[in-house]
C-alpha cells in the first residue's frame, strides 16, 4: 500500500491572517487614543478600561461555557468591545458602569445572536445605548476635563470669557457640540451673541484643541489625532477600508456646511464642518464603529450607502434631533439596514451582460 497524502480543496497557499490577528490589531490601533485619554483625564481612564475589558472577556467565557461551545476569548473580539465601551464613558463614572455596559454588550449585543459574526448590532454601541438609557445623567454629564490642561470653558473657546455672564449659564453643556446645539435652540441670547459664540466654536484654535484632544468628553473620543493614527494603521493593514469612513465623514462635512449655520442655508463658515467632524464621537464612530465588519455591508457600493446613511442621520441628530451627539444611534440604525443594503448593491460581475 503506497502512502496516502492529505487532500483538500485548492488553494493550497494561505495568507497569514486570522480572526485573532485582525482583532488584536484593532486593539492595538485603539491604544493611542487610550493613551491620550489617560494623559488628559488621568489614570482612572485606564482603570475603567480594564474593568470594561475584563467584564467583556469574562462574560464571553461564561456564556460560551453555558452554551457548551468552544471558548474563544483569546480571539480578541471581546477585548475590542470592552475597550470601545470604556471609550464611551467619562472618567467620573463609577466602576460598575463600564462593567454593566460590557456585560450587556457581550451578552445581549453579541452572544444571544450566536456570537461573533452573527450579531446584527455593533455590540459596543448597543452597550452604550443601554447605558445612556439606564443612566442618562452619568453618561452625559460630568464631561468636565480633570486635567488642568483642558478646562473647556477657559481654554477651548477663545474669547468666550469676554461674553456677558449669562451666556455660560444658558449654555450649560460642557462639550463643544453641546454648545453648538444650545446655540441653535436658545432664544435667550441675542442673535449676534449666538453668532459670536458660533464663530468661536469654529475658529482654528478650537479646532486645534479638538484635533489634539484638549477638550471635555469621554475617554476615547477626545483626540482625533490619536484615533486617526490608529485608523491609518488599520487602513495600511487592510483591516478597515476607506469607503465607510470617507463617505460618512464626507456626508457630515457637506451637510453641516449647507445646514449648520444659524442664519439659514450656507451661512456656516467653512470651518464649521471641520468642527463637526472633530467633535463628539464622529472620528471614533466613523473609523472604528461604523467599520465593524460584522455589522456593515460587504459590497463596495453598499459601504458607501451605509456611510452616507450614517452621515445623514448624524447630522439630523446634531442639528434638529433631541441629542447633541448622534453618532452612535446613527450607526445602530444603519446596522439594521445592512442586509437590505447588501441585497440591493450586489456588484456587477466582471463582464456582466444584461440578461
Amino acid at each position, binding site marked *: 500500500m503506497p502512502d*496516502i497524502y492529505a487532500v*483538500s480543496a*485548492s*488553494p493550497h497557499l494561505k495568507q497569514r491572517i486570522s*480572526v485573532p490577528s485582525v482583532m488584536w490589531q484593532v486593539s492595538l490601533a485603539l491604544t493611542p487614543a487610550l493613551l491620550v485619554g489617560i494623559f488628559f483625564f488621568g489614570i482612572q481612564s485606564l482603570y475603567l478600561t480594564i474593568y470594561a475589558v475584563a467584564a467583556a472577556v469574562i462574560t464571553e467565557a461564561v456564556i460560551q461555557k453555558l452554551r457548551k461551545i468552544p471558548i474563544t476569548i483569546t480571539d480578541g473580539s471581546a477585548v475590542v468591545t470592552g475597550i470601545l465601551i470604556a471609550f464611551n464613558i467619562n472618567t467620573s463614572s463609577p466602576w460598575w458602569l463600564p462593567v454593566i455596559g460590557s456585560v450587556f454588550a457581550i451578552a445581549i449585543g453579541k452572544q444571544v445572536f450566536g456570537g461573533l459574526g452573527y450579531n446584527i448590532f455593533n455590540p459596543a454601541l448597543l452597550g452604550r445605548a443601554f447605558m445612556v438609557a439606564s443612566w442618562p445623567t452619568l453618561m452625559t454629564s460630568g464631561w468636565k476635563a480633570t486635567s488642568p490642561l483642558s478646562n473647556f470653558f477657559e481654554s477651548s473657546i477663545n474669547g468666550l470669557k469676554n461674553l456677558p455672564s449669562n451666556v455660560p449659564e444658558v449654555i450649560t453643556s460642557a462639550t463643544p457640540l453641546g454648545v453648538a446645539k444650545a446655540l441653535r435652540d436658545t432664544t435667550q441670547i441675542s442673535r449676534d451673541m449666538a453668532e459670536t459664540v458660533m464663530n468661536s466654536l469654529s475658529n482654528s484654535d478650537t479646532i486645534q484643541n479638538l484635533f489634539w484632544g484638549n477638550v471635555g468628553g469621554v475617554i476615547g473620543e477626545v483626540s482625533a489625532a490619536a484615533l486617526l493614527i490608529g485608523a491609518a494603521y488599520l487602513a495600511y493593514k487592510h483591516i478597515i477600508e476607506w469607503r465607510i469612513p470617507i463617505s460618512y465623514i464626507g456626508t457630515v462635512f457637506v451637510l453641516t456646511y449647507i445646514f449648520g449655520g444659524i442664519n439659514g442655508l450656507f451661512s456656516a463658515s467653512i470651518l464649521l464642518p471641520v468642527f463637526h467632524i472633530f467633535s463628539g464621537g464622529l472620528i471614533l464612530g466613523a473609523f472604528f464603529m461604523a467599520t465593524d465588519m460584522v*455589522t456593515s455591508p460587504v459590497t463596495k457600493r453598499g459601504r458607501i450607502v451605509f456611510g452616507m446613511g450614517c452621515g445623514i442621520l448624524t447630522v439630523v441628530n446634531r442639528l434638529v434631533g433631541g441629542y447633541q451627539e448622534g453618532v452612535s444611534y446613527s450607526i445602530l440604525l444603519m446596522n439594521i439596514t445592512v442586509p437590505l443594503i447588501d441585497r440591493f448593491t450586489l456588484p456587477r*460581475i466582471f463582464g456582466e451582460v444584461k440578461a
Partner: protein
Amino acid sequence: MGLKTFPGGIHPHDFKHFSKNKAIEEIPLPKKVVIPISQHIGAPSKPIVKVGDEVLTGQCIAEPCGFVSIPMHASISGKITKIDKFHHPTGILATGIEITGDEQDRWIELENDENYFDLSIDEMKKRIADAGICGMGGAGFPTHVKLSPPADKPIDTIILNGVECEPYLTADYRIMLERAGDIIAGLKIFMKIVNAKTGIIGIEANKPDAIKMFRKLVKKDKNIKVTGLKLKYPQGAEKQLIYAATKRKVPNKGGLPMEVGVVVQNVGTAIAVYEAVRYKKPLIDRIITVSGKIVKEPKNIKARIGTLYSDLLDFCGGTTEEIGKVISGGPMMGFAIPFLDTPMTKGSSGLLLFNKKEAHKDDESTCLRCARCVDICPMNLVPSLIANSVRYDDFDLAEKYGVMDCMKCGSCAYVCPSHIKLIQWIDIGKIKINEKRSIK
C-alpha cells in the same frame, strides 16, 4: 514602462526562486507510462489498442470522440500492458492505457516541412488536431477547437499567455527563455489560422529578462507586441489577461474570448503547435516544474506524457522531509492528490511537494463579514455570500450571486481570516447547480 493589469487580485509570495534558474533537463525514458484517455476538456478519447499490442513512440493509441476531443499517443515505445482505472492528476480514478517501455524509443516517422508556413489553413488545423494538442496551461481545452471560431466571430487578436502567475511554477518561464523562437513561430501559425492581425505576448513583470528578450526578437514584426503585466494573481487567468492586454471584457455566463475577438493560447501550446505543424510531431512530452521547499533538487523537467509523478520526484532526488501534501499543478488552483503513482498529463504544469506544516489547514471559523474576499475577487463576485448560500443549500441564491462565473482562482480563500474553504463551497454549489440543470 506602464504595466497593465486587471481590477482585484492578490499578491502571494511567488516561491519561484527554487527552480527559476534551473535550465530544462530531460528525464531518462521511464520504464512505464500511463496515458489517461481524458486529459482535456471535452469527450474522453477512445482506445484503439488492446493489451499486448506493440506501439511506437508517437503512435496514436486512442482516437477522439467527436470534434471537442483529442487523440492520445504513445509517449514511449513498448507494449500495452494494461487498460484500466488509474490515478488521475485531478485526484480521481480514470481510465488510462499503460505502456511498458522497451527502452529503445522507436519513433513513428516524423517530417520536417521547411515550408510549413505555406500550408493551407485546413492542413495546419488538421495537423494540430491529429497531434492531440490541448491547452497546456492547465485547463486543457482542445486547441483546434479554439482555432475554429464560427464565421460570425472574427478574431483580430491572439494573446500568448506567458504570465505563469501561479507561485512556484517556472516551466513556462524556462521555455520562454530557452525556446523563444519556437514560441514566436507558434504564435505566427495561430495568427495565420484565425487571420488575426495582432499578436500579443503577455508576460508578468517578475520575468523582466523574458520580456526583454521577446521585445528584441519581435522588433521586426510590426504586428506582434510584448505586453508587460503587473505582478498580481490571477494575472494569467484568461479573462483577466484579455482585459489587461486589450481592455476588452469577455461576457460572463459562459462567454468565450472569441466573442470579443480574442483567442488566448499558452506559450507551451505554441511550441506544441509549431512542432505539430512543422514536424507532424504529436504532443507526447512537455515541461513540468517539480518544486517545493522539501524537494532535494527542484527542477524544470522535460518529460514524456504519462510519466509517473514518483519518477519525476526520484529524478529530483526525493524529499528532505516527510511529505504532507502532493499537488498537481500550481498551489492556487492545482489538485492535491493522494498518491504519487499518478501520471502527468498534457496539462500538468507542476508537481509540488509540501511538508506536514505547509499542508496544514486551519479549521473554519465564523465569517466575520470582513469582505476581504469581496474586495479582491477578480470576477467581482461576493464569495462569502456565495459560500453561505451553498452552506444552507440555497443554490438559487448562490446562482444569483454569480457562483457559475467563478473561475476558482482561490484568491478569496487565500485572504480569508476565518479560513473558510470558499472554493470548496463554491465547487459544491457549481456541482449541485449543474446537476439540477442536467435534470431539466
